């Protein structure tokens, strides 16, 4: 115990037992402060940029006209050029036309998949007869590697927009249908019985109890489907297209234009991230009741 200086007396009533021992908290019980969380979140990004810059610098020391790892400035310049200057041949601003075309395809493909997931997912999860008829079929179809259907689609539907949209739909719909059906099945049995005792018809159960509870799950399934959705979009555009983000990347690959490729990759990543956040925000604001428990990424 420390000595008491200047004649100060210990305060009356204060116990002088051993000080409470502070066990270090378990790691799972320690959360970073908000500022630290932001800092930690930024760290991998900064590390990547630094590593890239260093590698690019070293290569260009050897060979100033190196094309493999262009400097950040030249990537930025390429992006600026693509986003502002009109193409001499077509008169369009390349980046925006590519972005518009790609997002249209992605939106249509995923939109159709979403409609299938909603209708078939609820029907399979909710109506025993339809489940018996369709569940095994959907399970089998969802195992076909979608990219293997692409040649069939090109042959059957031609090289136009339809086959690209169909690839995105076929690639994402089966998994979404299955997860929707499972989500319907997972609604507690108690709720289904309860709603019948309140006098609901089958249609009313679907529209007032099942569908509203499926909406946040549908958005979650859509967020997951965005990943394969982008893959199928870029693949289809790379193989047969005259516009789009994937088309551009595979076009300039022939000229080793890494500055264009990298600025497109970064742009696609930003688009995908924004779409994901937008969907999360929609789910949180429109279906807040489903976000009250647990964290979500």
């Amino acid at each position, binding site marked *: 115990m420390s000595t008491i200086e200047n004649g100060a007396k210990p305060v009356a009533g204060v116990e002088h037992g051993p000080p409470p021992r502070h066990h270090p908290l378990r790691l799972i019980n320690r959360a970073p402060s908000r500022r630290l969380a932001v800092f930690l979140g930024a760290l991998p990004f900064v590390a990547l940029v630094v590593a890239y810059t260093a590698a690019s610098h070293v290569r260009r020391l050897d060979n100033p006209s190196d094309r493999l790892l262009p400097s950040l400035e030249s990537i930025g310049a390429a992006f600026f050029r693509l986003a502002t200057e009109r193409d001499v041949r077509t008169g369009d601003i390349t980046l925006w036309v590519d972005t518009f075309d790609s997002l249209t395809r992605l939106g249509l493909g995923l939109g159709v998949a979403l409609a299938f997931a909603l209708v078939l997912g609820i029907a399979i999860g909710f109506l025993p007869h339809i489940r018996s008829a369709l569940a095994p079929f959907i399970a089998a179809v969802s195992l076909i590697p979608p990219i293997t259907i692409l040649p069939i689609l090109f042959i059957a539907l031609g090289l136009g927009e339809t086959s690209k949209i169909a690839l995105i739909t076929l690639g994402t719909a089966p998994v979404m249908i299955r997860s929707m059906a499972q989500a319907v099945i997972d609604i*507690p049995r*108690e*709720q289904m*019985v*309860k*709603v*019948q*005792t*309140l*006098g*609901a*018809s089958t*249609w*009313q159960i679907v*529209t*007032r*109890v099942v569908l*509203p*509870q499926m909406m946040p799950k549908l958005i979650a399934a859509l967020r997951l489907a965005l990943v394969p959705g982008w893959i199928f979009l870029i693949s289809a555009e790379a193989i047969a297209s005259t516009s789009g983000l994937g088309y551009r990347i595979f076009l300039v690959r022939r000229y080793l234009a890494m500055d264009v490729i990298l600025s497109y990759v970064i742009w696609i990543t930003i688009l995908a991230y924004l779409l994901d956040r937008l969907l999360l925000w929609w789910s949180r604001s429109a*279906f807040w*009741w*489903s976000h*009250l*428990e647990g964290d979500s990424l």
Partner: protein
Amino acid sequence: MSALDVRNLGMAYGGTPILERVNLSVAPGDFCTIVGASGCGKSTFLRLLLSQERPTRGQILLDGENLPPEPTPDRGIVFQRYSVFPHLSVEDNLILCAEFAAAPLTGRFFGAKRRAARATVDSLLEQIGLAHARKRCPAQLSGGMQQRLAIAQALMMKPKVLLLDEPFGALDPGIRADMHELLLKLWDEMKMTVFMVTHDIGEAFKLGTRVLVFDKIRHDPHDPSAYGATITYDLPLERKRHVQPPETINELIATSEEIPAHA
């Protein structure tokens, strides 16, 4: 006339008998509490009364007619959990059945009609103490509040029979006493027939006008699942008499030997 007649009811799951030879006749307005060992088939009995499942043998008559083959509004239910709708606010949970009745196609009120419907549940919300929480959704309510909502919701259809499966099992004793008051008050007002499963003998004696004990009477020592359970004791209670509730089921059975069982 009796409200509910159970005749020689039997239920088996995949050849394993759970209930057998259950006979029961319940007068309108009776408050039957059901006790029995875990797994003896109490919830199964409620599911049969609700038409959630069909009996393998025997029949159940409601007001002299066979039960409809699926759940209907004449029998309300409160489960231990998950009986309210998580996506609807407290008040919207309560107006749901009115919406079902009034709007076959959309199942929903809009605008002024919805405001009017929400206003009709004002006094009920006051009564169950949820007036201040009417805009919240179930995940924002405590367990007791959720069960009050579930009871109120089940009573919105004015069912002839109210079934409760361990409705207060997860609540602390103080809240439980409040819930008993609420339930008895609503029962007094609405005069419905009640079946309530509970593991709390004190609760069974406090609330019931009749205590039903489920147990097996036949035992095969080599095959414990050979026989199902039935109603072994059926004790009519005078609510005013203040019977001292026994502590355990065994004690209840021991003392009830003196009271003639009611077949």
